[in-house]
């Protein structure tokens, strides 16, 4: 079976090949290709089953997590409710066990009824509708064969989708441009229907059959001029509705992917399947010449990998390499990408031409880049980067202080983005339970601290559990209103913003005030500790006020006051009935690490958290840590600098009943590891080294695409009985490079534990080398991922030289 470079992930399924409108700009019935006349009007259930099978096999072979299928035509609603239901059922039956099936339907809307909408709700099929603007604009082309307007029927359909019961179906509006229409009128007419998204489509044209252009000066950029008027209006309204073409130009200008095949250099991953099961290339090619979209394959005899090998498909996956010399030399090529493939065609030179809309695309892209909407950047921002040697050092399993410092810097950027995203999402959610927290005030406090005390702000934002909190909130906010989230619990999570704000204010030594949640009898201040308050708390909130060197905590009429010592600790004047539980520091010779048994968001490890350590238990922790750190500093020089630079927090866990060691890392908690107390410093050293490997690799995965995230296969991991996903195998293998190294060095030390160390080294080195090859042969690593695995292999191989 041949493998396509880019697997098909999007399918246009022609469920009905005829149309009830006779739009004169339609490429199907007014284009070169008359293949529709030879095909059955509607797709059968049997054909749909074959389609589903082919998609499922392709998705499985290429390990796709989801595929998109657009039910299309002709006019797909002409298939009728019953036939559409059977086609959808056939597709789901074949594909459901393999990957997610994202179903859409694109319709002219004139037949849309409650019965159709009920089917689409039950089958989760999103609906897009074609509309060219207001009545006059729409009636220029979108008419019945007898000349009647379709406008009223389409408006009725759109209004049906705008009803609450069907609102989840409403995908957007597609407008084909006619430059004779007034662009602002068209845009305003579309926006009046509150579409989630609008897309503007250039009429299909080629160099052989150029688009209509008004015969007046400047008409060579008539389409750009038309779109620019809309862009300027869209921009002035702060982009109130998503316009795919504009968003794509902004995204591609910044170096991201386009959202549409019409522009950009993203290789096409789209196949079309006709009513009779024949595979075709992009529908738009029908505008080029007779037979341009044909592949000669059908679902009954050919799988999708064969289709992917078709030269026409491969040509559309060529990205920059398939563009003309003129395009490659152009300053806007990263955005326009040569335009839609079909629009490049000429009978003289095929598709190796700029788009027939080249002057329009060039002018439009340049205009948008010169006039980005407020808040939108069209410049690729500075990105975090690792020097080659830092990357390779980390990939080999190590990483010095500089390399770890870069990882931490990147985490700070991510934390800032998460905080802003939290603010954006939390400020728009309607959650009555959150009203008691002054989120706006807390945000303003943080904005101010960021400006006047950036070091204190950074310390709080880089605290390991801030990202845990932010991620939890953002996920919860997606669920608000769905019944999946407990509003009171979500509100407390949101209210934690106040705790972050006053923690930063205390760190900065400035005045601030915030309403904060009281959870499980405690007021939590990240980085600092918690105030355990006895008795009930009817409101479950407290007011924390900070000033230079002091803070007060109020719950109703109860109040506690603390001053901040020179060492930064909070000291309560008389703790009275409350207990301040600070984050205590474990101190090695040249290293201080917080033992955090207080933070409200440290429950991210999947293990039971140890309760607050007593003074004696903390002393035991400290002795063990000091010895472990000396051990690491003396014998593990390749790991010590990285640990010293990056390990900031240890979270104590409840020991396992059997006494076996427990340790864990959370992907969202950079700089922290969780460990159940151990008596042997050697074991603590091993656990710290092991877990910090996960911390490092987690950030590398944040920074770079190391593997194909759509690979859903499970792999054998020698150290586990169950099969593991690719990322987990990579994480485990990377950690076990260090575990093997740990025992190797113990073995070479020749002390009393050398025999045990030798046996463990033998076990782990073998069981690390094997999954390295599994990873290398997975076919799912990117170039950087392969480089990482190569370095890991190099480390393991070096031990036997």
């Amino acid at each position, binding site marked *: 079976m041949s493998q396509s470079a880019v697997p098909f992930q999007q399918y246009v399924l022609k469920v009905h090949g005829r149309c009830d409108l006779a739009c004169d700009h339609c490429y199907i019935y007014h284009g070169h290709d008359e293949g529709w006349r030879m095909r059955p009007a509607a797709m059968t259930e049997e054909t749909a089953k074959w389609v589903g099978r082919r998609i499922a096999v392709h998705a499985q072979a290429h390990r796709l997590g989801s595929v998109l299928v657009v039910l299309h035509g002709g006019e797909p609603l002409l298939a009728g409710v019953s036939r559409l239901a059977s086609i959808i059922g056939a597709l789901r039956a074949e594909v459901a066990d393999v990957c997610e099936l994202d179903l859409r339907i694109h319709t002219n809307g004139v037949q849309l009824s409650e019965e159709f909408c009920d089917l689409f709700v039950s089958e989760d099929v999103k609906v897009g509708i074609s509309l060219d603007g207001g009545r006059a604009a729409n009636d220029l082309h979108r008419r019945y064969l007898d000349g009647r307007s379709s406008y009223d029927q389409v408006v009725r359909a759109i209004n049906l989708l705008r009803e609450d019961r069907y609102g989840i179906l409403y995908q957007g509006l597609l407008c084909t441009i006619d430059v004779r229409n007034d662009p602002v009128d068209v845009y305003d007419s579309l926006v009046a229907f509150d579409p989630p998204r609008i897309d503007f489509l250039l009429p299909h044209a080629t160099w052989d059959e150029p688009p209509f252009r008004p015969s007046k000066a400047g008409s060579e950029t008539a389409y750009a001029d038309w779109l620019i008027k809309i862009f300027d209006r869209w921009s002035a309204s702060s982009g109130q509705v998503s316009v795919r073409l504009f968003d794509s130009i902004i995204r591609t200008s910044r170096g991201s992917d386009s959202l549409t095949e019409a522009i950009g250099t*993203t290789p096409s991953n789209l196949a079309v399947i006709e009513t009779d099961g024949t595979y075709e290339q992009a529908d738009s090619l029908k505008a080029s010449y007779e037979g341009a979209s044909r592949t000669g394959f059908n679902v009954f005899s050919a799988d999708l990998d064969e289709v992917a090998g078709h030269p026409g498909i491969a040509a559309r996956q060529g990205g920059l390499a398939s563009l003309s010399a003129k395009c490659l030399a152009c300053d806007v090529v990263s955005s326009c990408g040569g335009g839609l493939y079909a629009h490049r065609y000429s009978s003289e030179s095929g598709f190796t031409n700029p788009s027939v809309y080249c002057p329009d695309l060039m002018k439009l892209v340049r205009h948008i880049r010169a006039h980005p909407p407020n808040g939108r950047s069209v410049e690729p921002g500075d990105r975090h980067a690792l020097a080659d040697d830092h990357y390779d050092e980390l990939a080999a399993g190590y990483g010095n202080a500089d390399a770890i410092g870069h990882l931490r810097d990147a985490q700070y950027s991510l934390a800032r983005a998460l905080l802003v995203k939290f603010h954006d999402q939390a400020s728009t959610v309607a959650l009555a339970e959150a009203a008691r927290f002054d989120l706006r005030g807390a945000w303003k406090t943080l904005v101010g601290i960021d400006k006047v005390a950036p070091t204190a702000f950074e310390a709080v934002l880089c605290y390991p559990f801030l990202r845990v909190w932010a991620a939890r909130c953002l996920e919860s906010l997606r669920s608000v209103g769905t019944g999946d989230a407990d509003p009171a619990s979500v509100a407390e999570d949101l209210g934690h913003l106040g705790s972050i704000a006053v923690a930063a204010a205390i760190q900065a030594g400035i005045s601030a005030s915030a309403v904060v949640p009281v959870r499980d009898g405690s007021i939590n201040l990240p980085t600092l500790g918690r105030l355990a308050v006895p008795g009930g708390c009817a409101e479950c909130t407290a007011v924390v006020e900070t000033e230079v060197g002091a803070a007060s905590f109020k719950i109703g009429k109860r109040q506690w006051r603390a001053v901040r010592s020179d060492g930064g600790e909070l000291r309560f004047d008389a703790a009275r009935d409350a207990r301040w539980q600070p984050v205590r520091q474990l101190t090695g010779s040249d290293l201080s690490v917080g033992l955090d048994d207080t933070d409200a968001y440290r429950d991210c490890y999947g293990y039971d958290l140890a309760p607050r350590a007593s003074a004696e238990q903390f002393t035991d922790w400290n002795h063990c840590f000091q010895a472990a750190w000396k051990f690491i500093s003396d014998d593990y020089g390749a790991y010590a600098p990285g640990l010293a630079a990056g390990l900031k927090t240890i979270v104590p866990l409840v020991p396992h009943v059997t006494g076996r060691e427990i340790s864990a890392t959370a992907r*969202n908690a950079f700089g922290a590891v969780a460990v159940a107390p151990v008596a042997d410093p050697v074991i603590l050293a091993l656990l710290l080294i092991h877990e910090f490997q996960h911390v490092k690799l987690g950030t590398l995965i944040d920074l770079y695409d190391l593997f194909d995230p759509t690979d859903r296969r499970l792999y054998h991991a020698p150290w586990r009985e169950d099969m593991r996903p690719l990322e987990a195998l990579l994480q485990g293998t990377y950690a076990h490079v260090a575990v093997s190294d740990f025992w190797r060095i113990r073995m070479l030390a020749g002390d009393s534990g050398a025999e045990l160390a030798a046996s463990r080294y033998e076990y782990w080195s073998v069981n690390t080398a094997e999954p390295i090859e599994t990873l290398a042969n997975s076919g799912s690593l990117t170039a950087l991922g392969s480089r990482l695995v190569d370095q890991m292999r190099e480390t393991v191989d070096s031990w036997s030289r």
Partner: protein
Amino acid sequence: MISVEERSAKITSKVEDLREVSLEDLAVERDSVDDAVIRVLPDESTPRLPVAAFNSMI
């Protein structure tokens, strides 16, 4: 689609450096924020948005 990085003296990451951008500016720079957040919280509905639904017309 997965990206392939080129070997170079520096390996540019997918994460924009936002350390020096004020929170207020970030609050209106939704592209920068969204690009970063998607690295932490992948939203399968966001990347590789469907092109097909709006690239063909009836």
